């Protein structure tokens, strides 16, 4: 770790990065944001913004269950719970019944309610309220290592899944005719999103995680004209927002997650403007 810090000191000769918690937070953001931004491109294409929102909210229930079981480290239970929740929502949506936004809304509310019920009942609600906004400044080198491994595994799966997922997102029947196991591919994707969201939630927070997944990809989509541009712009926007948010919020003493998301929102606004300008120029 000290080696990495030394490299960072050389690369970032700024006063605020003298503190190791700042270096840790920066590293964590460098690991977290690109994966979320890449997964986000597909979540936006597949119109799943509301789904990932429900998934994020269900983290409260995950934490609650972890507390009930008396676990000190709730990450494993969070991930397991998130994966089950994601599979359940997807399964119910696939088999029909009510419209998907209704189903998702039910799951979202149920997740929050279950979490609040358990946490308020156990009297430890205040201890766990930080999960709502997250605290990236508290991240430790071990956590960062875990995030790094998760990023590597996540990227590898993303490489394997992407083309099949893209064809499925464009049209499932066509993808099926090309021999793609569309059902397996879709479940693979929601599981990947669930794991990424749950691993990030302690640092980014229940209320803000979905913005980090959706905003960079949505902004990138406004200006991208190909799949590669979509991915590239999304990653650039998320990194830019992550670093800017961190550098702005710490001196001001405000929430890092909130600042990061606000930066991404500004990027989204700019992308709308840019898309408009590009369209006008194309027409001229």
């Amino acid at each position, binding site marked *: 770790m000290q080696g990495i810090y030394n490299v960072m000191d050389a690369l970032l000769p700024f006063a605020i990065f003298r503190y190791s918690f700042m270096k840790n937070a920066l590293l964590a953001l460098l690991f977290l944001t690109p994966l979320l931004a*890449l997964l986000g*491109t597909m979540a936006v*294409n597949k*119109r799943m913004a509301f789904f990932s929102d429900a998934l994020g909210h269900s983290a409260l229930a995950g934490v609650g269950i972890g507390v009930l079981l008396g676990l000190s480290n709730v990450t494993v239970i969070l991930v397991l719970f998130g994966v089950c929740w994601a599979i359940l929502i997807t399964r119910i949506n696939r088999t029909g019944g009510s419209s998907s936004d209704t189903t998702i809304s039910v799951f979202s509310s149920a997740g929050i309610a279950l979490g609040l019920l358990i946490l308020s009942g156990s009297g430890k609600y205040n201890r766990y309220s930080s999960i709502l906004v997250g605290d990236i400044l508290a991240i430790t080198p071990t956590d960062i290592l875990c995030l790094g491994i998760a990023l590597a595994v996540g990227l590898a799966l*993303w*490489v*394997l899944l*992407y*083309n*099949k997922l*893209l*064809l499925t*997102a*464009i*049209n499932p*029947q*066509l993808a*099926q*005719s*090309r*021999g*793609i196991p569309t059902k397996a591919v879709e479940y693979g994707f929601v599981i990947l999103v669930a794991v990424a969201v749950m691993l990030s939630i302690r640092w980014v927070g229940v209320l803000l995680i979905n913005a980090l997944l959706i905003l960079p990809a949505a902004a*990138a*989509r406004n200006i*991208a*004209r*190909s*799949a*590669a*541009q*979509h*991915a*590239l712009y999304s990653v650039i926007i998320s990194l830019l927002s992550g670093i800017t948010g961190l550098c702005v919020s710490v001196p001001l003493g405000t929430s890092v997650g909130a600042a990061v998301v606000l930066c991404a929102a500004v990027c989204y606004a700019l992308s709308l403007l840019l898309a408009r300008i590009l369209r006008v120029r194309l027409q001229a």
Partner: protein
Amino acid sequence: MSQTPYPYDPTHRHDHLHSSHCGLCRIELDHISVIAQGETLLQDVNLHLHCGQLTALVGPNGAGKTTLVKALLSQIPHTGTVRHMDDQERVLRSVRTGYVPQQLPFDKQMPVTVTDFLAASLTRRPVWLGVSKRTRQEVQSALSLAQAEHLQNRMLGQLSGGELQRVLLAMALTPTPDLLILDEPVSGVDQNGLALFLDTVDQLKRKHHLAILLISHDWALVRQYADEMVLINKTVLCEGAPETVFACDTFREAFPAAAKEVE
């Protein structure tokens, strides 16, 4: 029916492009039945689809045309077999099916180019990492089969109905299928574009000896382009050259207006 897994094997395609005679080779549908939720959708369909021939599949609404296509694509469970026979009466390993859907409902705003779309179906390398030079060439040669090279850098959502149909044809033809299924390639395309599309299909049929199954109710087009015609309603009612089928009693019953028209 077994389906060869994608991504495609270039050697297979190469063989195909150079197999010169396959007038006798065919795809045999043998006793195909589909029963879903207690309802018989198809009963004992026996059909031969010959290579180098375009077979038009017709039938009233609910006759099971789409069900037959789904069975051929292994998208729904069915009984009976689908075999690919060569001209020596040997059974070949599998039937590779190319499918051009009737419509492609998709999100038109999606930032995906024609090249991305085809590359995603041809390679494992994820297209968000960019498309390699080699894949680009493969995409180009696929598009050239459907006379659509000029579309490669366009966004998928900005194509017209006819252009999209050509891109879908290019995809269905790569790797070269044994059987090409065209599901009502009429909707969303103007008459001129449709004739152009079927001219391309006709040339491909001659060049690559494809077996083609066309679902269409455009009788003039069927008469012009089909070598064989099959009327189904749950099962095969009448088959033969288009003129023969047009004269069938079962055809007159199913399409009284059309029967008058073709006379």
